[in-house]
C-alpha cells in the first residue's frame, strides 16, 4: 500500500531541510509545492537536467531553414522578379525575415513543448489541490511503500515527528 504524506511549511529553508531528511530516511520525495520557484528544487527532487534548451534549438533551426528555403523558392524559382537588378537569390535581403521566423518558431515551439512536458492545458483542473501553495505555504510530498523506497511499515507518527522537527505546521496523510 502506497502512503503519501503532505507536510506544510512556512519557510523554504524548512522545506528543503525536511526534503533532505526524508530522503535520508529512505522516503521518496515525490514533489514540492511552493508559491515561487525554490532554489534547489532540482536537487531535492533529483530532477535531471531539462532538455528544453534543445527543443528551443531544434525549433529555431527549423524556422530558420524553412524561412530561408521559402524565400529562396519564392524569389528565385516560383516567380522570379527583377527588383532593382538584384540577383534572384539575394540572400542578404532574406536574413531579416529568416531571423524573425527563427525567433518565432523557437519561442512558440518552446512554449508548446513546455505545456506538453508539464501536462498543462487551458481549463485543466489543478491536480493535488493544496491550500495555500499559491499564497504563502510550502508543501512537501513524500511517499513510502513504493518499490523504490526502503522504509518499511512507514509509521505516520515517526514521519510526523520528523517533519515537526523541521518546523512543519501541518502533516497530512493521503492514500492513493
Amino acid at each position, binding site marked *: 500500500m502506497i502512503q503519501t504524506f503532505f507536510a506544510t511549511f512556512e519557510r523554504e529553508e524548512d522545506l528543503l531541510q525536511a526534503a533532505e531528511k526524508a530522503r535520508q530516511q529512505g522516503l521518496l520525495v515525490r*514533489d*514540492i*509545492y*511552493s*508559491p*515561487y*520557484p*525554490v532554489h534547489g*528544487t*532540482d536537487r*531535492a*527532487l533529483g530532477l535531471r537536467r*531539462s532538455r*528544453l*534548451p534543445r527543443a528551443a534549438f531544434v525549433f*529555431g533551426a527549423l524556422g530558420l531553414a524553412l524561412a530561408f528555403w*521559402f524565400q529562396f523558392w*519564392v*524569389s528565385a524559382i*516560383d*516567380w522570379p*522578379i527583377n*527588383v*532593382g537588378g*538584384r540577383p534572384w537569390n*539575394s540572400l542578404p*535581403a*532574406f536574413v*531579416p*525575415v529568416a*531571423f*524573425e*521566423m527563427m*525567433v*518565432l518558431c*523557437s*519561442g*512558440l515551439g*518552446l*512554449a508548446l513543448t*513546455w*505545456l506538453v512536458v*508539464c501536462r*498543462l*492545458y*487551458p*481549463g*485543466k*483542473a*489543478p*491536480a*493535488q*489541490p*493544496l*491550500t495555500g*501553495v*499559491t*499564497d*504563502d505555504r510550502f*508543501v512537501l510530498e513524500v511517499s513510502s511503500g513504493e518499490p523504490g523506497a526502503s522504509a518499511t511499515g512507514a509509521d505516520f507518527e515517526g514521519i510526523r515527528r520528523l517533519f515537526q522537527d523541521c518546523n512543519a505546521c501541518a502533516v497530512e496523510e493521503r492514500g492513493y
Partner: protein
Amino acid sequence: MEEKLLQPDPPWILGNKSLAQVTRDVCAPLERRGSLLWWGAFLVSFSLLLLGIAAVTYQMFTGIGTWGLNRTVGWAFDITNFVFWIGIGHAGTLISAILFLFRQKWRNSINRSAEAMTIFAVICAGLFPVIHMGRAWLFYWIIPYPNERGSLWINFRSPLIWDFFAIFTYFLISLVFWYIGLVPDLATLRDRTRPGLYRRFLGFFSLGWNGSGRTWYRYEILYLLLAGLATPLVVSVHSVVSTDFAASLLPGWHTTLFPPYFVTGAIFSGLAMVLTLMLIARKTMHLEDYITPRHVGAMTKLVLATGSLVGLAYLTEVFTALYSGNTFEHANLVNRIGGPLAWGYWLMVACNVLVPQLFWFSRIRANLGLVFLLSILINVGMWFERFIIIVTSLERDFLPSSWADYAPTSIEIATLLGSFGLFLTCFLLFCRFLPMIAIAEVKGILVRRPEEAKP
C-alpha cells in the same frame, strides 16, 4: 561622508512584507470596486478611443485624402505614430528580458505592467500601417499565401515586408512571454476568488497550475530561454523599422547610423512611458511599497544613459552630414535645424537631450512629481523626433520644384488621440482584471538569503 557611503541600500520591497501580505496587497485593487479616479480615467480614455474609431471609420470610407499628405510628403503622421508606439513597446522587453538576463532584481516590481504596456503599444503601432494601406480589408495580402493571382508572392527584398514579419513576431513573442509569466499569478488569484465567472476565467487560463516543483523548475528554464530569445528580437525589431527609412535613398534617411539610433531612441522613449505609467499606478493603486523611489531612481538612470546615447546619435547625424561632403545631405541638415520645422527639431533636442541630463542630480531623481513631468516631456520629444526625421527629409527633396509643406488635418490628430485612447483603455482594464505586479517574482526577492546579506 564615509558613513553615508556605508549605509546599506533600502530593500526593494518596503514594509517587511510576509508572503501572504504580498498576495493581499497585489490582489487588493482587483478585489475592490473601481475607484472614482479609475472610472474617471477610464471614461476619458474610452471617449478618446471612440473618437479614434470615428476618425478611422470616416477615413476608411472617404479615403486617405482626408490626411494632410501630398505628393511630396507621402509619409507623415501615421508613420510617426507607428514608430512612436513600436518604440514605446521596446522598454517593456528591455525590462522583462534584458534586465532579467542581467539579474536586476528591481525589475520584478515593474516587469508585468511594462510587458502589458509593450503588448498594447504594439497593437497601437500595428494599426497605423494597416490604416495607411487605405484598403485595410485587403491587409492579408501582405501574408505570403498561395493565391488566385497566379500565386503572386510578396517581395521579400522589401524592408516593409521585413517590418511586417518583425512586428508580428514581436507581438506574438511578447504575448507568450507575458502570458507565461502570468500563469502562476492567475493560479494565485484563482485560489482566492469566489466561484463565478471571473474564477472560471482564471481557472481556464491558469492551465491547472498547482505550484509543483517540477513545473517550477521547467518554468524557470522556459522563462530564461524566452528572455534569451526576446533580447535579440527587440534589437532586431527596431533595426528593421529603421531600414524602412535607411534602405531608401533620401538624404537624412539613407544612413548606417539608423539601426542603433532607432533602438536606443526606442528604449529611451519606452522607459519614459514606463516611468509615466508607474508613477500614476503606484499612487492610484497604492503600490508605494512595491514601486519605491529606489525603483524610480534606477529607471531614471537608465533614461539618462539612453538619453545621452540619443544625444550622441543626434551629434553623429550632424557630423556625418557635414563630413560626407554631399550637397543634398548638407541641405537636409540645414533644413532640419533651420527650415520650416526647426521649432520641432529644437523642441526634440530640448526634450531628448537636455531634459534627461537633469537626472544626474539625485535631488531631481528623488522628486517623483518632477520625474513624472520630465517623463512626459521626453514622451513628447520622442514623438517629435520621429516626426522630424520623417517630414523634414520628405518636404525638401532633390527638386526644389516639388518642395511642399505638411500640416496634419483634424482626422490625423483624432487618429493619434484615438491610439492613446486605445492604449490607455487597454492598460486601465489590465489594472482592474489582472495582477499589475508579478506576485510570484516579488515573493522570490523578499527572502534575504544569507549569501546576499553580505555587502
